[in-house]
């Protein structure tokens, strides 16, 4: 008999929703079979079977939620019957998964004290064996880390030492605090109550933490996008002839943001409590709007990528983000973010920093408007507003300005990005 529990599928996941079961009670299961689809705060992922047997019971039906570690189903081994386990399921340790708060507490209360001379075993949660390397167990024991809450990156989800490396893990220096003042909410007639999805919950927590704990400041510039439009049109004409995919304005902007960050690396950094972490690689997060929220997939080592590679990467990531097909490593570990609302007709705005990053860029639409040129004439020009939100603990005004100046130079002379 093996319980199938809600796995931890992302770093920020606390609970998941069973979208639907791919197997029914009574189905025989082989290792690797997809049992169900689980929606996390970030994506819909497949739940695979690690054991074989027969699906004996389902505790959380399609649409139901469960916290990490809670039982979703019961798998009976060869020759076992579901009955044997039924008796067991009445015991306090295996309460209904729908009861959200209790199981964790109940478990820790019923865990017998482990002998003191065996520090390694005390970290094992009573819900079962924690797969972890001997080194990981020792580090966890020394640091008081509960391994049952750690997601292993080793074979078969085994926890290895690097899974316990803290810096520069996200959320290390940001703890979401509940608002101290609760504003009373009335539910007038006709209003709809929409329960928070996993993703909305995470957006709420992280952005609240960001806006309340990171000292934001904002710089704004307006750049001449005429040359960029001209170069893009020229490129696309020849790309079209060659039968290749076109480049978007955003592709050029992403390339410029990355190249400028490589030039002014102090913005490509994080605040780490007692130090500033400055990164060598520019891992670019790109904000992508999806049906019920927002994800920021990451173009890794973007400073090493050509315009074409960036264009392809963002296209691929955005497509998969919209179908919730991103893997956790594809939306984690970014070092700065670009949010572009130009295509929605937004002319300028300020963005909230995506922690633990230090800056986020807010790109507006290209607008044709009159400007005064060097000869004091009023002429039409293509203008684009760029907003920078920066963490003042990491980036000062002058550095932010230096970064924007470099960004302006690249966007106004886009040919520079190609060399």
């Amino acid at each position, binding site marked *: 008999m093996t319980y199938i529990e809600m796995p931890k599928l992302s770093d920020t996941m606390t609970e998941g929703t069973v979208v639907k079961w791919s197997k029914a009670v009574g189905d025989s299961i082989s290792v690797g079979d997809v049992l169900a689809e689980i929606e996390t705060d970030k994506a819909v992922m497949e739940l695979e079977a690690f054991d074989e047997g027969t699906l004996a019971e389902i505790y959380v039906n399609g649409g139901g939620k469960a916290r990490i570690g809670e039982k979703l189903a019961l798998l009976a081994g060869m020759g076992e019957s579901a009955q044997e386990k039924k008796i067991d399921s009445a015991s306090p340790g295996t309460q209904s998964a729908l009861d959200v708060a209790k199981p964790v507490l109940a478990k820790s209360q019923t865990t017998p004290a482990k002998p003191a001379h065996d520090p390694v075993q005390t970290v094992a949660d009573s819900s079962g064996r924690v797969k972890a*390397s*001997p*080194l*990981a167990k*020792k*580090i966890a024991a*020394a640091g008081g880390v509960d391994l049952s809450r750690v997601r292993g990156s080793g074979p078969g989800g085994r926890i*290895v*030492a690097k899974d316990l490396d803290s810096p520069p893990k996200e959320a290390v220096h940001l703890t979401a605090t509940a608002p101290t003042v609760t504003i009373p909410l009335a539910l007038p007639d006709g209003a709809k109550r929409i329960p928070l999805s996993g993703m909305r919950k995470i957006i709420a927590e992280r952005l609240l933490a960001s806006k309340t704990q990171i000292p934001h400041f904002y710089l704004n510039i307006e750049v001449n996008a005429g040359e960029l439009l001209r170069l893009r049109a020229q490129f696309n004409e020849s790309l079209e002839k060659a039968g290749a995919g076109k480049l978007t304005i955003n592709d050029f902007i992403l390339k410029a943001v990355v190249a400028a960050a490589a030039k002014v690396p102090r913005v490509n950094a994080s605040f780490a409590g007692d130090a500033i972490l400055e990164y060598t690689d520019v891992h670019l997060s790109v904000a992508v709007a999806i049906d019920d929220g927002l994800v920021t997939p990451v173009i*890794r*080592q973007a400073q*090493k990528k050509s315009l074409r*590679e960036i264009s*392809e990467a963002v296209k691929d990531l955005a497509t998969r983000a919209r179908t919730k097909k991103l893997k956790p*490593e594809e939306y984690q570990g970014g070092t700065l973010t670009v949010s572009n609302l130009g295509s929605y007709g937004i002319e300028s705005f300020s963005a909230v920093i995506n922690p633990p990053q230090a800056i986020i860029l807010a790109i507006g639409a290209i607008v044709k408007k009159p400007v005064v040129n060097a000869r004091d004439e009023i002429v039409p020009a293509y203008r684009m507003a760029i907003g920078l939100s920066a963490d003042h603990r990491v980036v000062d005004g002058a550095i932010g300005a230096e970064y924007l100046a470099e960004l302006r130079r690249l966007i106004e002379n886009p040919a520079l990005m190609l060399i």
Partner: protein
Amino acid sequence: MNTYDLVVIGGGPAGYVGAIRAAQLGKRVACVEKERAGGTCLNWGCIPTKSLLRNAELFHLMKYRAQEFGFRFDNLSYDWGKVIERSRNVADKNAGGIEYLFKKNKVDYILGEAALERAGVVTLNGKEGQAQKLEATKVLLATGVVSRPLPDLPFNGTTVIGSREAMVLKKQPKSIIIIGAGAIGVEFAYFFNAFGTKVTLVEMLPNILPLEDMEASQVLEKAYAKLGIQVLTNTKVVKAEAGKDGVKISVEGKTTETLEAEVCLVAIGVQPLLPGGAAVKLTSRGYIETDGRYQTSIPGVFAAGDIIGPPLLAHVASYEAIQTVEGMFTKHTPKKVSVFPSCTYCQPQVASVGLTERTAKEKGLKFRVGKFPFSASGKARAVGEVDGFVKIIFGEPQGEVLGAHIVGSEATEMIGELGLAITLEATHEEIEATIHAHPTLSEAVHEATGQAYGVAIHI
């Protein structure tokens, strides 16, 4: 035009392994090799040299240690031609084995010289001269490396040679100068010396096997001195002249002198052997640059093995190729090589995995060292192989294995246990808790671990 899911250029430990794995994944695969399946490893490296070294070990034992074991050989002699022939036969058999594996896995094995025309197209000049094009969704470049000459001493095939010529010399040289004391130089020094060739081993760095732990190098230097091999470390070649009958090499080290010998083996390193055709981006050292998925600067074109740079080892190449191919065709995220064993098959053998004591210090790590000499091992005494030691470096405070270094007669067969320990993140406690068979040489691993924590029994 023939179309494939994957065309592999090069049939060595990266190429053939990558090709077979892709075929196992149900892909249509061709592997193009210009010479013979198996690459340097099987034809001109790992395997034939191990055959030669076995001859050398046996001959050394019979010639110099017979009395110790109570044997007497009154007319002991050897046939140089047969020594070489055995090595070639071993290579031939192995190469045949790979062709069989290709057949079994339905990989199209094509003899010929391939060039990358562009992503998706490989041009082929077949052995019979016909040119053809292969279309491939993915291309894997695994063309490997060749010996690098000294700048002013080009290879001439007779008096100035690389490792490839050194293993098929028709006549045994009376004297040989070996420049470079990495694994290749050190192994050939042992081989030629065992058969009575006067060997001088020249190394620019302070120790032979300079990448190994210094203590391992020092034990080997002592053993080589005992064998009568002249070892010149901290020594630079300043002038080199090659004639028809021999070489003159001027060196500068502790002393400045001009060495003379019949043959000079240059084993200072290798250079990449790039495939022809479309240019992929290279690293500053001329190897093919790849990203995290082993993809080159041309999308759809991948590279693995020696051609992407050090560590230049067959087992590393095979690992890389499997990672690359699984990354191409499955959901697997390819991993880069991190921990790998290094082995040198002289006597005593030298094997290592993970960090040396020097690198652990340079990284600023806290560690402790456990060591056990084979002279204290019952099995080592019984078989008469008491040279060497097991040295293990444990991280503090948790006691994980950071590195291990073994010098001894079966060192290369013993290093696997410690590689597994590193991969599984085992600590000293797991090694101590594992019963090691008695009597074996591998008990020394157990004892070295105990020694680090003050609980060793036999030392």
